[in-house]
């Protein structure tokens, strides 16, 4: 009797011991001796080779089958992005220009470096990085241009028109299109596409082809952010406004934060500093159709300062995009410095690392899906009264139905000139009701209060799968609530 009681108690408290490494594994790719693996860009060629560019100017190819590296091009200035054109041609974004690099004689080594676009300014300030390119379905290329840092001045000789009105502030834009995303059409027309960026190190698309940019915490960015970028919009860092057509001849910093706030388009997702990300990098959508596991269609974002990636759960509220972020592969074998991401043809996710001037790390790794489905949050949708959370697996009812399994806190980040922002007006938010769907995968939570303009941070409790074998893989998720659901809108729910 005593023994039975002891055993049942033991069974009741025995927590599932699965970890993300039961489902995914991280492999480190050997790199050539003498290569400083500060990875600026990675992509896969049509023939399946990896193309990668590095800080000291090398563009190298790696054959995953033969595991051999070869040099394709050299001598570039801090290349920070590469995309293939064909098996013997790539586009590389380097500091001074977007360059088409070709091997025209078939010896495997590039012999032609054509300037595709250098129609943007360079003050010579070290922080004027150039990121991209990425290509949309219509063949348009996009690249993003970092602002300069007042950690240093500018050179005596610059490229492009100088505007002293853009020289103010912590991060500045005294030459054209610093702080902009640029579009280059297939017929060669360069269009300043959107403004208001500070340090847009990540540029890419979601699975639906929407153009996205990550930007880094700093002046005017209370925390790091993910933007959905649309033509003509301004995203909040003021320096770039001097290069907006029709903008008056004023220093943008003379506008009040309230004026600037009314002009800006908010982020789709804020990445809370310390908790989720310090320096988000490139994003990539999982279009592997399941080869990479259960997250097909979702978005992964790299992160410099934590040994993890970040996964984004989009939500559409009255046609507007917002959403949540959640760690992925946290402390599961990835290094820090996860600067560039690319899916290989076999569905593995390759991660190029970089530490240049930041915390980070150097190297190249890949994440390979093994088998099974971890218990993880797959969707987070705002409802009129709270949130619907959908998990990858049916949940154990006892834990899932407890209000205590869902701890909410909300806060906001100030939009102001200062560097970063504290979590402001932080308050716990009570969960007043929990409903579990018939398939036990969706939890509908009713919250005591929903307020727009806040980040809703949710810490999940000891949720486990219905079969008791899996524990929830990631407990922290942060939802950026820009817009409330209008009362008239019906909420699509799974059956209660």
């Amino acid at each position, binding site marked *: 009797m005593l023994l039975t009681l002891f055993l049942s108690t033991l069974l009741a408290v025995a927590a599932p011991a699965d970890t993300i490494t039961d489902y995914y594994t991280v492999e480190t790719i050997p790199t050539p001796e003498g290569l400083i693996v500060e990875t600026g860009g990675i992509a896969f060629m049509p023939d399946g080779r990896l193309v990668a560019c590095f800080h000291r*100017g090398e563009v190298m190819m790696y054959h995953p089958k033969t595991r051999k590296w070869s040099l394709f091009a050299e001598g570039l200035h801090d290349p920070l992005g590469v995309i293939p054109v064909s098996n013997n041609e790539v586009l590389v974004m380097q500091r001074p220009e977007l360059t088409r690099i070709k091997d025209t004689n078939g010896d495997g080594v590039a012999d032609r470096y054509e*300037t595709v676009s250098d129609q943007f300014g360079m003050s010579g300030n070290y922080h004027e990085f150039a990121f991209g390119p990425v290509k949309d379905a219509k063949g348009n290329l996009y690249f993003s241009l970092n602002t300069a840092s007042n950690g240093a001045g500018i050179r005596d*000789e610059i490229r492009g028109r100088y505007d002293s009105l853009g020289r103010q502030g912590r991060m500045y834009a005294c030459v054209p299109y610093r702080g902009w995303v640029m579009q280059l059409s297939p017929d060669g027309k360069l269009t300043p596409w959107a403004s208001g960026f500070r340090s847009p190190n990540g540029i890419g698309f979601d699975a639906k082809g929407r153009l996205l940019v990550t930007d880094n915490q700093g002046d005017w960015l209370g925390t790091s952010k993910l933007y959905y970028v649309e033509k003509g919009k301004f995203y909040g860092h003021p320096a770039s406004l001097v290069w907006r057509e029709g903008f008056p001849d004023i220093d943008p910093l003379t506008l009040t934060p309230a004026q600037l706030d009314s002009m800006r388009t908010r982020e789709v997702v804020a990445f809370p500093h310390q908790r989720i990300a310090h320096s988000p990098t490139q994003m990539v959508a999982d279009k592997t159709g399941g080869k990479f596991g259960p997250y097909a269609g979702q978005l992964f974002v790299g992160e410099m300062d934590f040994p993890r990636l970040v996964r984004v759960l989009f939500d559409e509220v009255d046609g507007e995009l917002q959403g949540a972020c959640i760690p992925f592969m946290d402390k599961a074998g990835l290094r820090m410095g996860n600067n560039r991401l690319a899916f290989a043809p076999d569905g593995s996710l390759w991660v190029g690392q970089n530490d240049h001037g930041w915390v980070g790390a150097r190297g190249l790794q890949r994440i390979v899906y093994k088998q099974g489905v971890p218990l993880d949050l797959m969707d987070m949708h705002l409802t009129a009264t709270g949130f619907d959370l959908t998990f990858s697996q049916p949940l154990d009812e006892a834990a899932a139905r407890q209000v205590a399994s869902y701890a909410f806190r909300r806060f906001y980040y100030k939009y102001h000139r200062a560097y970063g922002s504290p979590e402001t007006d932080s308050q716990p938010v009570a969960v007043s009701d929990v409903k579990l769907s018939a398939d036990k995968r969706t939890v509908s939570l009713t919250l005591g209060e929903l307020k727009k303009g806040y980040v809703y941070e949710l810490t999940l409790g000891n949720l486990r799968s219905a079969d008791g074998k899996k524990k929830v893989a990631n407990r922290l998720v942060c939802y950026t609530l820009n817009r409330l659901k209008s009362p008239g809108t019906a909420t699509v729910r799974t059956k209660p």
Partner: protein
Amino acid sequence: MLSTFYFISSFWLWLHLFAEPAVTKPPVCQGATAAYADTTIVIRALAGLQYEQTRLVVKPKTRFRIVLENADDMSHNLVVTRPNSRMKVVEAALKMGTDGAKKNYVPNLPEVIANIPLLEPSHTDTLTLTLDEGAYPFVCTYPGHGYVMYGVIHATREPKRLPPVDEDPYVPKRADAGDHAAHGKQSAHPYKMTFPALYRTFMPECGPAAIAVGLPADPTAGQQSYCWDAGSCRLRYAWTGGFVDSYGHWEGNGNRLTKVVGDIYYNDRSGFPFRIGTATPVPQFKGYELVNRYPKFSYSLGSVQVTELIRAVPGKRGLVRQFTLSAGKLPVTFLLDQQEGVQYQTRINNVVASAKNGRLELPAGTRQFSVTMLVP
């Protein structure tokens, strides 16, 4: 190697060392590098035109002493020069002729900071020196020796920022230096540096879209390099004695510029050299093609397409600039940068053609011309 690289210090110097929190124990040799507080450094001249020690690291503004022991069977001196002045001093010593031996082959130049005179085999002499922050070459200026027999004194407060000794551009490379140096580590890249070599980087005295090109070394003239501005589409300057040191630019935040290694012998002062008709065109950079690794730059001047390929003049200090032009209806003028000491030889369509008053007139329809600059 360790045992032959020794270190002398008095009790007083030991006290000094202990007073320095940064140096908590006697300097330790790492490879061929050692850090010194205030001390005496012994350098031995060895057979095969080499100093045993090729890199010294000292504190700026701190007195130190160099002892030169000539362990070779030939005579050698040791001349400390200002940064980036080794080749200038070596070439001046060559020109001293019969006067040279009397003056220990030490030319009377402001670039010479200090010297140990010519030593017979088995002789020893010393010099005492205090240096400001910088990389100061030391070299044997006995005729012929200075191309290979040299080293560097790094006066730096940040010895950790120095590249590994076998990647240090101021340290001579030796093919027979053994496995460690000969395989892999000589280059800043996962491949051996092959010249011509090109870097797009931040160069001094140039626009921010700069291109540095190192040309193959010439047995008599040594290595020449040049800086080409991809913003203004023109040659900016040229130097001898090496290529570039990019470590400072690569490391840290990238604010530091790449450095010229060697002596700049030509600096353009005339601006953009082309006129089309009477107009000064605005150039647009188009990129480059590699022809046997030589970059052939392309740029447009309105409707006129230009290519430019630059080689070293064989055996001499100077550059050959070969241009092509697309067909155009207007005459084109190329302005020669008129500077004292720069000589030009010009050819149009491969025929010698002389410039008048520094203007090379290219009749409408000219498809190729060349400008050879000699800076003896």
